């Protein structure tokens, strides 16, 4: 058994090729932008962080307030990512595999956090749960503090990372259609069996991809969290807020040292994203794959 390879259409390539000068110019332009706006700042972060030596760098990171910020960031991401994972899968499943009224509305609603400025979303929570807010008096009477405390930060993080998993899954599941689920149904599978044995395995790479993006945003979110946090050192400061505070105090070396953690997270996310992207694209393609060669 051999697999036939398709020879690339060299004629088409030649026809689509621009003159050499144009190609160089365009590539050069793109590269310059990339270096100027992405690589240089990234390098700068690490250079600044290590400027005063490894000891200073290390001290800034293991300082108690920095550790508290790391812990809080991990908590916020640790709660919001699993919740949005479950929500995202459920929403994508409902939207792509069933017909119901108000579907278009649900899709719009999922996109809301993307279209609203994060500061506004944080502010909404303050208006709702803050002392002067609608539910403030009731919360105070029951001795529950949401705003300027960890629960508020978690809530705001959940809100801004809401769309990531669902947005990633909807196009993938739409491309795959419902035929496999119908086949499983006719073969006698129950709803849960269909979900765990047919639907989920088909989108697992898409799920991971969504989780990676969701996690990066959850850890890096500044605007919404800034509004609800109150910036209490060691208590309600996440990593991005901690960086800001240090910077405002002209403690540049420490600010950049902590910032490198976020930069590393970004790099890791990009690598994971690149790896997963290939898998997801393959899954979409195989949903409409042409008949293979024997």
């Amino acid at each position: 058994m051999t697999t036939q390879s398709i020879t690339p259409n060299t004629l088409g390539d030649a026809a689509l090729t621009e003159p050499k000068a144009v190609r160089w110019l365009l590539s050069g332009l793109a590269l310059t932008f990339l270096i100027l706006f992405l690589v240089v700042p990234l390098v700068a972060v690490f250079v600044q962080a290590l400027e005063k030596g490894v000891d200073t760098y290390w001290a800034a990171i293991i300082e108690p307030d920095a550790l508290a910020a790391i812990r809080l960031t991990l908590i916020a991401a640790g709660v919001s990512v699993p919740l949005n994972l479950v929500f995202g899968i459920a929403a994508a499943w409902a939207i792509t595999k069933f017909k119901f009224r108000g579907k278009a509305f649900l899709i719009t609603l999922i996109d809301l956090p993307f279209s609203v400025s994060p500061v506004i979303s944080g502010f909404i929570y303050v208006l709702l749960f803050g002392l002067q807010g609608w539910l403030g008096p009731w919360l105070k009477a029951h001795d529950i503090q949401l705003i300027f405390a960890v629960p508020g930060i978690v809530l705001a993080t959940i809100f801004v990372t809401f769309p990531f998993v669902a947005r990633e899954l909807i196009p993938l599941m739409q491309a795959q259609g419902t035929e496999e689920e119908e086949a499983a149904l006719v073969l006698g599978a129950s709803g849960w069996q269909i979900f765990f044995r047919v639907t989920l395995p088909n989108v697992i790479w898409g799920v991971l991809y969504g989780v990676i993006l969701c996690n990066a945003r959850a850890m890096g979110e500044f605007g919404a969290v800034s509004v609800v946090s109150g910036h209490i050192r060691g208590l309600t400061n996440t990593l991005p807020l901690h960086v800001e505070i240090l910077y405002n105090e002209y403690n540049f070396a420490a600010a950049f040292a902590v910032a490198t953690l976020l930069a590393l997270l970004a790099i890791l996310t990009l690598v994971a994203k690149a790896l997963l992207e290939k898998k997801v694209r393959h899954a979409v393609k195989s949903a409409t794959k042409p008949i293979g060669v024997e």
Partner: protein
Amino acid sequence: MGIQIQNISKQFGNYTALDQIDLTVPSGELVALLGPSGSGKTTLLRIIAGLETPDTGTIHFDGEETTQRKVRERQVGFVFQHYALFRHMTVFDNIAFGMTVKPRAERPGKAQISARVHELLGLIQLDNLVDRYPAQLSGGQRQRVALARALATEPKVLLLDEPFGALDAKVRQELRRWLRKLHDEIHVTSVFVTHDQEEALEVADRVVVMNQAKVEQVGTPEEVYDRPANPFVYGFLGNVNLFHCRGNESGGQHGESTFPVDSDGVNIGYVRPGDIRILRRAESAADIAAEVIFIQGAGALPRVELRRVDNGETVHAELPREQYRQLALKIGEQVYIQPTNIRVFVPDYQI
């Protein structure tokens, strides 16, 4: 198991997919639902499976009502148009799926499942591909795996939606014969949907011709082909030439055949291309002068297109190779045509 369909109707919004369908599928038969796209045949198949719910009407399996029964309890096998194989499972796991999702009490043991899968793989002649994924199979192989998967749970009814639609001509013919042979071996009541009349006539025991949400005719392939109930069935089952005939009160006349006409003295005669005789010289006054405008000599039945001299209408003829060679027709030549086996459909108002 026989299927009794009574008064089934289905609407999608304003669109009527099925309009009061009555149909009986006898036990053990292989039945084709044949019709153009939009005729409602796939909807009917999905209603039998339980994948759609009818607006009115009932479905009985062997006299037992199943209309309200859930899909998974109906014990039907369904082969989807694009196979719908589970893409992340091997051929083995695809075929075994129906057995592995059974409630624990009914689920066969691992060894039993494996034995059944290999038995089915033998049936579809794909023993050596057990560890492949669907993406690594050809279209014909996927189709057979889909069939084996549907048969694995020993369904009482097998339903196939355009089973050969997505395959190329050669593979389609092979699979068609293979399905017929398979059905003769296992005798499960089967219904398949097709828009290809050749496929329906070749494979099915019984053909149900559908059009615009209604059943036009039910019969054996010979019945529907030789004695079509109406112009639609006639036209759908093969190519047609139309002859507008004029007659007197005693009926229309064309050559030696007489047939009834409507009140205006007009009727339409339907003639298959194979029933058009081409003559070098006129034999009677009824023969029609025509000019040869196109010849397609390749294939089992050479086709000739002619233009009538009297009214300019085009007539299609097919003739046996032997005769084609003897006639040695050329484009632009004038010949005579003689329609035989003229078929006329009597309008409703007649007694």
